[in-house]
C-alpha cells in the first residue's frame, strides 16, 4: 500500500494536484491512500518551500508545480517492481 501525501494549504493548485493524483491512482489501480497535509510545520519539515508538493512513500517527488498525469503515474509505478 502506497502512502501519498499532497502538501499544500488549500490553494487552487494544491486541489488540482490532489485531483490529478487521485485520478492517476484510480487509472492505474494502485493500492494507495491519498492524504492532504495542510499543516504548515509538517510541510516545512518535508523541506518543501513552495507548494503544492507531492510525497510518495516519504519521498518528495515534486514541489512548486503541478505535474502532468503521466509524471504522477510514473512515480506511482516506479517502486512497484
Amino acid at each position, binding site marked *: 500500500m502506497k502512502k501519498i501525501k499532497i*502538501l*499544500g*494549504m488549500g*490553494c*487552487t*493548485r*494544491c486541489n488540482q494536484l490532489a485531483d490529478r493524483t487521485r485520478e492517476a491512482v484510480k487509472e492505474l489501480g494502485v493500492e494507495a491512500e491519498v492524504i492532504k497535509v495542510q*499543516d*504548515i*510545520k509538517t*510541510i*516545512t519539515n*518535508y*523541506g*518543501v*518551500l*513552495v*507548494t*503544492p*508538493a507531492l510525497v510518495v512513500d516519504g519521498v*518528495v517527488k*515534486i*514541489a*512548486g508545480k503541478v505535474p502532468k498525469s503521466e509524471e504522477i503515474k510514473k512515480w506511482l509505478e516506479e517502486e512497484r517492481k
Partner: protein
Amino acid sequence: MLTPLIQGGMDAFLDYLSAHVLACLVPAFFIAGAIGVFVSQASVIKYFGAEAKRILSYSVASVSGTVLAVCSCTVLPLFSGIYQRGAGVGPATAFLYSGPAINILAIVYSARLLGLDLGAGRVVGAILFSIIIGLIMAFLFRKEEKEKVKQALDLGIPEGGKRGYALLIYFASLIGILVFASQKQWILTGISFIVLFSALRVWYSKEEIKEWLLATWGFVKLITPWLLLGVFVAGMIKTLIPETLIQQWLGGNSLQSNLIASVFGALMYFATLTEVPIVKAFLDMGMGRGPALALLLAGPALSLPSMIVIVRVMGAKKAFTYIGLVVIMATATGMMFGHFFT
C-alpha cells in the same frame, strides 16, 4: 435594499469590462507565466539559506516577491521554510511583508487603476519597510535566534530555468511590450514584439514556449474569477457604504485615517489583486491617498487566516510583534506618502 446592491455590483462589473482595464493585465500575465517557467526558484531561494550572507538575504527577501509570490500559495510555506530552516526570523519576515505586495501583476494593476504614484509607492514602500521590519524583528529576537540549530536549507526543487542572454532579452522584450503598450507607443511596442519573437525562435524550443503559454493561461484561470468577484464587491461597497462615512474615517491624511486603513487591511483577507478594485472604490468615495497606500501595504501582507498561520510558525509573541510592526509601518508609510503626494 438588495436590488440596488446587486445593481451597484453589476454596474462596476460592466464598467470594468468595457473600460479595457483588464487589457493592461494581459502582458503582465504573460510575464508572470514566464517567471513561473523560466526563472529558477532554486537560484533565488539559495540566498535564504542559513549560511547565506545576511545583507544578501535581506535584499533578496525584499525584492524576490516579484519572482516568487505570483501565487499566494508560495508565500507562507516559503516564509515558514526560511524561518525554520534557513536565514531566520529577519529575512523571513522581510519576505512575508514584501512578497505579496510586489508581484508583477499587483504592481501593474495598481499603477494602472490607482495611478502611477500609488503603484510606485506600493513597490518602494514594500521593499524599504520589509527590510526595516526584518531588521527590527531580528534585533528584538536576537537571543532566541542564536539558540536555534542551524539546518541546511534543503531546496527540495531542482535547479533549472534559463540563464544568461536568452532570459535577459526575452524578459526585456516582454517588459518593453508592457510599458510601451501602456504609453501607446505603438512603434516601440512593435519592435519589442519583433525582438520577442526572434528571441523565442532562436533560443526557445517549442516545448518551452508551450509550457510558458500554459503557465500564463494557468494564472489567468486562477486569478480572473477572484478579480471579477473583487470588482463586484467593490461596486457593492460603493452602494452600501455612504460616502460621508468613508470621508470621515478614511479621508484626508490624519493619523486616524491611516491607522484605520492599515488595521482594516491587516484583518481583511484579499484574494490576489482584489485589494486593488476595492481600494479604487474607496478612493472614488473620498479616501485619502495616504490611507490608500496604508491599506495596500497592510492588506496583502496580512489577513486573519494568515495571522493564524504566522502564529503557528513563529509563536504568539513574535507573530504579534510582527503584526504590530506591519500596522505601524503601513500607517507611517501611508502618512508620509499622503504628505508628499497630495
